[in-house]
């Protein structure tokens, strides 16, 4: 399956140039926006990030939550004209709790500031070497937080320098047409202008082939994905 990064580049180009989608003006001509919804089924094994064997430790490490939800993200590969200007960046939070990044997957628009509070009674050191956002927040104690603004679209893999089993994904979009799946794998992208789009599902670094979706005037369209 193709890796995800090129799709984000396409998303950016499409959003800026208005290419690849029916050039529908948002809320123009009396047309009402629609919805794309459906389900993402993940059939491949997605094990949680375990610790490396703690052979050099004097004792067993603390127990961690073993069932971290590995959400999928569904997004429009090509966004409508004007989508880029429509983004409304805000703030998001990726907590560090029980030696785990919570949530494991964060989907945001460009310009969003993400806070990384430390809720553990041990040091963490959040860093990323991903091209869209290279950063190293250093070590800071419980109760402290540091923040990063994400200005470039793409996939940002986040790690802790002290705890190699801690990792997370931040998917940064240049448009607002994306959604995270819930516990059942259901997703819903709201407020999509009528038109034809290519839609992609992503899960833990694996993307689906793009699927066409026709969004009718003021109605919903169903689109399911299967990721192996």
């Amino acid at each position: 399956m193709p890796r995800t990064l090129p799709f984000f580049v396409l998303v950016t180009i499409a959003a800026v140039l208005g290419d690849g989608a029916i050039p529908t003006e948002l809320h123009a001509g009396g047309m009402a926006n629609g919805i794309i919804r459906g389900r993402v089924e993940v059939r491949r094994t997605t094990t949680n990030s375990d610790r490396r064997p703690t052979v050099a430790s004097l004792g067993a490490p603390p127990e961690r939550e073993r069932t971290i939800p590995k959400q999928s993200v569904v997004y429009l590969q090509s966004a409508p004209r004007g989508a880029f200007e429509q983004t409304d960046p805000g703030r998001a939070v990726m907590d560090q709790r029980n030696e785990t990044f919570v949530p494991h997957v964060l989907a945001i628009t460009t310009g969003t500031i993400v806070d990384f509070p430390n809720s553990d009674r041990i040091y963490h050191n959040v860093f990323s070497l991903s091209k869209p956002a290279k950063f190293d927040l250093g070590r800071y104690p419980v109760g402290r937080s540091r923040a990063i603004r994400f200005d470039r679209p793409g996939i940002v893999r986040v790690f802790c320098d002290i705890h190699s089993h801690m990792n997370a994904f931040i998917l940064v979009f240049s448009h607002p047409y994306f959604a995270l799946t819930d516990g059942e794998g259901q997703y819903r992208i709201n407020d999509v202008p009528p038109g034809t789009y290519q839609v992609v599902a992503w899960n833990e670094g694996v993307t689906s082939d793009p699927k066409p979706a026709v969004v009718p005037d003021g109605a919903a369209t169903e689109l399911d994905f299967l990721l192996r």
Partner: protein
Amino acid sequence: MPPKPYRGRSRVIVLAAVALLTGARTYAQLPGEPIVFGDGRVTLGGDVSATYGCAHGQGIAGCGEDVGFFNYTSYDDSLIRNFRIDLSASVKAGEHISFLTEIRTDNLDTPQPYALYARIRPWRDRRFDIQIGRIPPSFGAFSRRPYPSDNMLIGYPLAYQYLTSLRSDALPANSDELLRMRGRGWLSSFSVGDPTPRAGLPLVNALSWDTGVQVHAATDLVDVAASVTTGTLTKPLVRDNNGGKQVSGRVAVQPVQGLILGTSLARGPFAARDVAVTAGLSTDDRSITQTAWGADIEYSRGHYLVRAETVLSAWRVPLVRTPVIDLPLRAVATSIEGRYRVVPGLYGAMRWDHLGFSEIQGSTVRREWEAPVTRIEAGIGYSLMHNLLLKVAYQHNDRDGGRVPTLGITAAQLVYWF
């Protein structure tokens, strides 16, 4: 005996480095995380490192070998020309018991079990563990992080690697014999015990773990560990060779987040029974002992990490002939190291290290029983990926004795782990 030719090993190290770099280009071919199977009961991890260093100094042309044997861990093995594969595994056999092992090969030699033990946690909610088998050392701070991915530089602190002339299977009959071996820890020989020249012992052996039982308890503030093992810090063993046991322990406190203060103690007989008998001691004599005390401190905040550790070791050996050896034979090793992350993925690090020794009286001279060594190492580490690190370091060694008193070494190390 001349230094062993490294041509074959060099090829292995270079090939390994190329393979790792090629692997970096095709990320999908390398596991990025530990391999977990058996419904989460079995976890496999690994560390692979390729290290190549060139010595510079008087009489060394081009990329020379470590002719001063400053970084050797045995007569054959040097830390600066090494290709190491470490595979570790943990198997959960139930809620209260796990089995852990680590298999290691250096330069593709026969793999050896570096660790093999059972970890028992009697109460699931209490941080109290009993570990039985070939266990991690209780003593010191560096002894549990000798992995290339944990070591901020390429060389090890002198206390954990530098070979003194003392051996566990051969002992000096008098102080003149001991003084003759100053600065020759890579290949020393004494008249009591095995006369074959062999490598000496470091203060604490970080390349081999001891066998025994360990008890560990921890709270957020205090961490305590105590062990009873067959070998000693200087000579860890799988099978007992002298009937004596080493007792060691460590207490660490964390008064505030980021600050760790630790102190350690260890005492045990370090020489083999055969050499004790040869020296005229009874078969179960435990007077050939190593006693060690250690103190360590670590402080980190933001992008800084600073550590300091000192190890004081005192050995007692039999007094066989005159001029007798002034006992105990003491050694004090002190290292201070620091790391600063300059930008994401790039850090600079430096370590200052000194190993000093007590003086003894020979027939004609009074001086340290081993040649004091001072080492400064500085380097950078660059993360090519989150689990692929390239280190480059320069190390300067000064020794008050031996064939090569001063040596500079430039080394590069590529480390991959999952």
